[in-house]
């Protein structure tokens, strides 16, 4: 049932969309996401999918058309990167607030300025409070698997929230790698037919979507959204379990890599996690007790599980591929450090901001982080709470 192939991240995601065969895709091309739209539109042109493909003049329209299609009762998707996501902004919130189970691959790319087409996480980290579930992928395999699972997570009646599926721009989107893909039938069976309970084109049960709600109801709507996000955690795990039975590949809220007996560890997301595991293996050979936590699900934020997985670590580095300009580290640092607050184990937690605008992160960079952690572990002290890795200053 699994077939071994070599695909780029964009090819893998486009293939997942072909197999999911959504009712509507409205998308606008932007580097490095362009190929997803290009490949998918050729599937439409070749009659390989039944999808209504809506060509639009901007990302604001792409998300608006996707919201409209989803509200009407269709399984709807779009895809974007960086400035495209920024242009969608107001409609991104509207998708989540209207509880529309849209799935959107986002190929992570730095936001302008300066103009840059390469990877960092500034685009989707900016959207972290928009109410979308966020799944980050280490490689093409995970991007493919996350896309298929995202449909089930989004459409689950306890959730009904849109899902962003991330992969690193160019590093994954344009890199050829091995992966296993499933046959069309298996994916079709797994995602099932979308049968929404409430939708605009249900003329027997007319509803209103997106009305005015002032101090009378707005707060309740937000409270329900928060509850849905809370529910998402169990649903993500249930879907992962079912997906494992089908594919043999295991997913959780995060991946713990050699953490059990680790004394020093890093928290990292996406493609750099692969490089991190390579470094951990090397350090383990040298007898160092190094480990790694790769976060897959950033929204909802699995704070309890993270605290449990890291509670015994003596010195921890959080790796952020985005700057939040808070003077208090990147967007991953603050919630990780906060999650560990109740552990009361005096874990030293420092932040490393890396790879902005596609700056390559190589094993020596991560080795340096672990060396710093060794020293922090020994002395119980650190020089800087927030560090910048691989930058000229």
């Amino acid at each position: 049932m699994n077939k071994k192939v070599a695909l780029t991240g964009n090819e893998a995601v486009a293939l997942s969309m072909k197999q999911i065969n959504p009712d509507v895709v409205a998308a606008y091309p932007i580097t490095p996401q362009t190929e997803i739209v290009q490949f998918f539109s050729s599937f439409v042109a070749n009659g390989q999918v039944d999808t209504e493909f809506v060509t639009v003049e901007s990302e604001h329209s792409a998300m608006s058309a996707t919201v409209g299609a989803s509200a009407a009762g269709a399984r709807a998707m779009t895809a974007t990167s960086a400035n495209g996501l920024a242009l969608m902004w107001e409609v991104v919130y509207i998708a989540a607030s209207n509880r529309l189970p849209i799935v959107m691959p986002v190929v992570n790319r730095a936001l302008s300025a300066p103009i840059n087409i390469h990877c960092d996480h500034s685009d989707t980290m900016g959207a972290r409070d928009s109410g979308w579930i966020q799944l980050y992928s280490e490689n093409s395999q995970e991007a493919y698997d996350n896309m298929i699972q995202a449909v089930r997570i989004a459409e689950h009646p306890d959730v009904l929230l849109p899902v962003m599926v991330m992969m690193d721009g160019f590093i994954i989107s344009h890199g050829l790698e091995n992966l296993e893909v499933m046959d069309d039938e298996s994916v079709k069976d797994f995602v099932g037919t979308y049968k929404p309970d409430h939708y605009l084109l249900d003329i027997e049960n007319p509803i209103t979507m997106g009305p005015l709600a002032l101090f009378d109801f707005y707060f309740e709507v937000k409270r329900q959204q928060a509850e849905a996000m809370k529910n998402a955690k169990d649903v993500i795990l249930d879907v992962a379990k079912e997906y494992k039975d089908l594919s043999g590949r295991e997913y959780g809220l995060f991946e713990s890599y050699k953490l059990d007996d680790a004394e020093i560890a890093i928290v990292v997301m996406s493609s750099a996690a692969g490089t991190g595991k390579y470094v951990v293996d090397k350090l383990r050979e040298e007898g160092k007790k190094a480990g790694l936590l790769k976060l897959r699900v950033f929204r909802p934020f699995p704070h309890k599980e993270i605290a449990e997985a890291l509670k015994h670590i003596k010195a921890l580095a959080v790796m952020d591929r985005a700057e939040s300009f808070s003077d208090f580290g990147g967007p991953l640092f603050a919630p990780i450090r906060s999650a560990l607050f109740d552990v009361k184990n005096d874990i030293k937690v420092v932040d490393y901001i890396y790879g902005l605008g596609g700056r390559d992160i190589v094993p020596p960079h991560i080795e340096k982080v672990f060396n710093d952690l060794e020293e922090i572990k020994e002395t119980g002290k650190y020089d800087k709470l927030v560090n910048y890795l691989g930058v000229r200053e």
Partner: protein
Amino acid sequence: MTIVIFEREEQIKMSDVIEIRWHGRGGQGAKTAAILLAEAASRVGKYIQGFPEYGPERMGAPVTAYTRIGDKPIRIHANILEPDIVVILDPTLIRATDVASGVSENGIFIINTIESPAVMRKKLNLKGGRVFTVDANNISLETIGRVIPNTPLMGALIKVAEVIPYDDFLKIMKEEFEKKFKSRPEVVEGNIKAMERAYQEVKGE
């Protein structure tokens, strides 16, 4: 991973992955070669990565691309800093870029040039390592009809370091080119000939 180096069985390095760095100029097909070789290796059951370093995409601008081939899953996601093999599609890059950066004592250079390996060794200012040369420009001109050094260099690479068995490589390349150039069998034939000729003609020290 043990591979045949220029018809001699040799342990190329302790690691499980062979890392190849391609230096070319926009239009010479460095990216295509890096990805095509990875794809061919994947077809014979290897774990692979193939990716270019995307910069300003202009004809003639220096381009770097990478291929990793291994027997185990490859998790590292970074450019190749210490390549086992460096393929140089344009010898004028030797002055423009540090093509030997990070290459070890056992490193292998495969260069598209009319010069001999000894001359290129001097130009590269190499003490260790091994240098191989092939006139890929002329081979491609005579077989494909235009100067496109990437395919002949792939043939030379397979001769120098048999990361994929030669017969499998030719068979897979033929299938890939047939997919790409359905209506132009002469292009398929030309590319295969280019690889065969470079395989025969590559010279080592």
